[in-house]
Structures are given as structure tokens and as C-alpha cells.
């Protein structure tokens, strides 16, 4: 990193920030398109469960973590059970603890006033793209990450709201297979993170634990048990390197 701070230098870095932001938006376009059907389905399901239309973008903008929002909608009633939904939100989003930790060594050079607002829009996809980009280029690019994240946030809020408004018309989108888009997006992200079979053995441990947990326990426990057992496996398998 340059230690000079001349005006031409900061201008150049500003320009490259804008370019980096646009690169983030551009490279995340396929993800944004993948968001559309999921957002529409979530909005539609939410109004069917008793959300008013404006509460849907409120939740999706303030929380911005799709998995927990699907769980919240699944558990929603009028009036909703606040404690249950908050607990399940914590469970589903506990992965953010580890995601933030993985980001920390790459973002040490950033001041708190930049990183704490940036963390508000960290989601699975923008985090994965930001980290993959940092690995490829050797430096974490905050504007690139913000380009991916903010594009995703705006898309998510707008299209969940559209889903809420169109709810009664498109409520049966799941019958046409649109809910599978979620799985497809996740599998492509997994393919991108695949290095070798040896390296990804913990994934299979996660799958082998999460799937039966889902069949046995109610709620979102399968996410926690699956993720934790995969990480325990990663801890012990790491010794062989």
C-alpha cells in the first residue's frame, strides 16, 4: 500500500474505489438474478403467513439474512412469538460469527467506521465473493465487497416487497420449482469453493449430520449441528497436513 497522501493519489484511489464498486455489482449480477425468484417466493409466503406488505421489506432490509427470514416466515403467526423467532434467527445466523472471524485478518487495515457499517450488509454470497476475490488478488477490496453487498441488499429489499405485493397472484410459485433456486445458488457457491476432495471432507460430515438432524429435530437445529460437526471434523483433519 502507498504511504503517500498527495491529492492526485487520493483522487486515483477514489476513482479506483468507484471502479471496484462497479466491478462488485457487475460480477454479482448472476447472483442478483438468482435472488429474484427466492425474494419473490419469500415475500409471497410472508404475506400468506400474516405479514403486512410493508413489514416484509422492513424485515428483509433490517435483518438481511435470507435463511433466517425463511425460518421466521415459517414460524410466523399473528401475533408472532418473538422469543422463538429471535432464538431461531440466532441459530441460523450463528455462521456469521465464523464468517466475520474469517474476514477479520483480511480487514485489519480498515478503520471501524468503515468495517462496522460494511458488516451490516455481509451475507453468505457477498462474503464468499469478497473472500474469493481477496484470495485471487492478495488484498481484500472493501469497495468491491460493498458493490456486491449493496447490490444484493437493494435487490433483496425491492423484490421481497414485490413478492409481498404480488403475493396472492404468485403464492404457488413453489409449485413451479422456483424455491429450488436457493439450492442451486448454494451448490454453485460450493462448487466455487471446492479445491480437492481431501480439503472438503468436512462438508460431507456436515451433510451427514445435518440431514438426519433435520429428520429428527424440529426447527433449525440441523443448520447448527451440521455446521458445528463439519468444523470439528476440519479441526481434526487439519492435523494431517
Amino acid at each position, binding site marked *: 500500500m502507498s504511504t503517500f497522501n498527495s491529492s492526485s493519489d487520493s483522487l486515483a484511489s477514489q476513482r479506483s474505489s468507484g471502479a471496484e464498486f462497479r466491478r462488485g455489482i457487475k460480477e454479482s449480477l448472476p447472483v442478483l438474478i438468482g435472488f429474484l425468484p427466492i425474494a419473490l417466493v419469500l415475500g409471497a409466503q410472508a404475506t400468506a403467513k400474516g405479514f403486512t406488505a410493508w413489514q416484509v421489506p422492513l424485515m428483509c432490509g433490517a435483518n438481511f439474512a435470507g435463511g433466517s427470514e425463511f425460518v421466521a416466515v415459517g414460524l410466523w403467526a399473528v401475533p408472532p412469538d418473538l422469543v422463538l423467532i429471535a432464538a431461531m434467527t440466532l441459530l441460523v445466523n450463528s455462521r456469521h460469527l465464523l464468517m466475520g472471524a474469517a474476514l477479520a485478518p483480511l480487514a485489519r487495515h480498515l478503520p471501524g467506521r468503515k468495517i462496522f457499517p460494511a458488516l451490516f450488509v455481509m451475507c453468505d454470497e457477498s462474503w464468499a465473493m469478497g473472500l474469493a476475490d481477496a484470495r485471487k488478488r492478495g488484498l481484500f477490496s472493501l469497495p468491491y465487497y460493498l458493490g456486491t453487498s449493496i447490490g444484493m441488499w437493494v435487490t433483496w429489499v425491492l423484490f421481497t416487497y414485490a413478492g409481498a405485493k404480488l403475493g396472492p397472484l404468485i403464492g404457488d410459485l413453489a409449485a413451479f*420449482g422456483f424455491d429450488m433456486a436457493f439450492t442451486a445458488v448454494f451448490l454453485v457457491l460450493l462448487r466455487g469453493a471446492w479445491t480437492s476432495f481431501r480439503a472438503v471432507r468436512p462438508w460431507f460430515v456436515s451433510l451427514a449430520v445435518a440431514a438426519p438432524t433435520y429428520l429428527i429435530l424440529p426447527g433449525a437445529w440441523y443448520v447448527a449441528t451440521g455446521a458445528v460437526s463439519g468444523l470439528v471434523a476440519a479441526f481434526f483433519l487439519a492435523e494431517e497436513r
Partner: protein
Amino acid sequence: MSPDLLAILTIASMAVVTYCTRIGGFLLLRNRTLSPRTLAVLEAVPGCVLISVIAPRFVSDKPAELLALAITLLAAWRLPLLPTVIISVVATGLLRHFM
């Protein structure tokens, strides 16, 4: 308490809990030097979480769902994101309708 107010409070509690998860790990681990083993665990996080979230798909009791998942897996293995999503959604819709 009105249902509307309770809905807003529930959404607010979700937002607070979620933001705490976002900054929690970052704050706890930001100034530590991580061992290779810790790094190996952190590298495994995204994959373990993603596969766990979609794990219910792998144990569906409906043949159409499992076949749709197999097609999605094949597409995801070979193709970029958008074609994968399109193939997956179309195949799932058709299989649910005809099986």
C-alpha cells in the same frame, strides 16, 4: 400489545440478533494471530454452513424432489450460476408436475 407492534418488535429483535452475529466473530478474533489449524477450520466454514442449510433437500421422501436435486447437482458441477438456476427451476417444476 397490538399484533402490529409485536411484529415490529420481533423484526427489530431479529435485526439486533443478526447484527450481533455479524460483528461478534469479527470483534472477538480481529486482533488474534490464528494458528494454521484455526485457519483450516475457518476455511471450512462456508462450505459446512451452505451444505447444512440445504441438507433437508438430500433426505426428501419424494422421488421427484430427489431427482430434481440430482439434476441441480449435475448442472451446478458443470455450468455457471444463471444456467444452473434456470435448469434447476425448470426441472423441479416439471418433475413436480409430472411425477
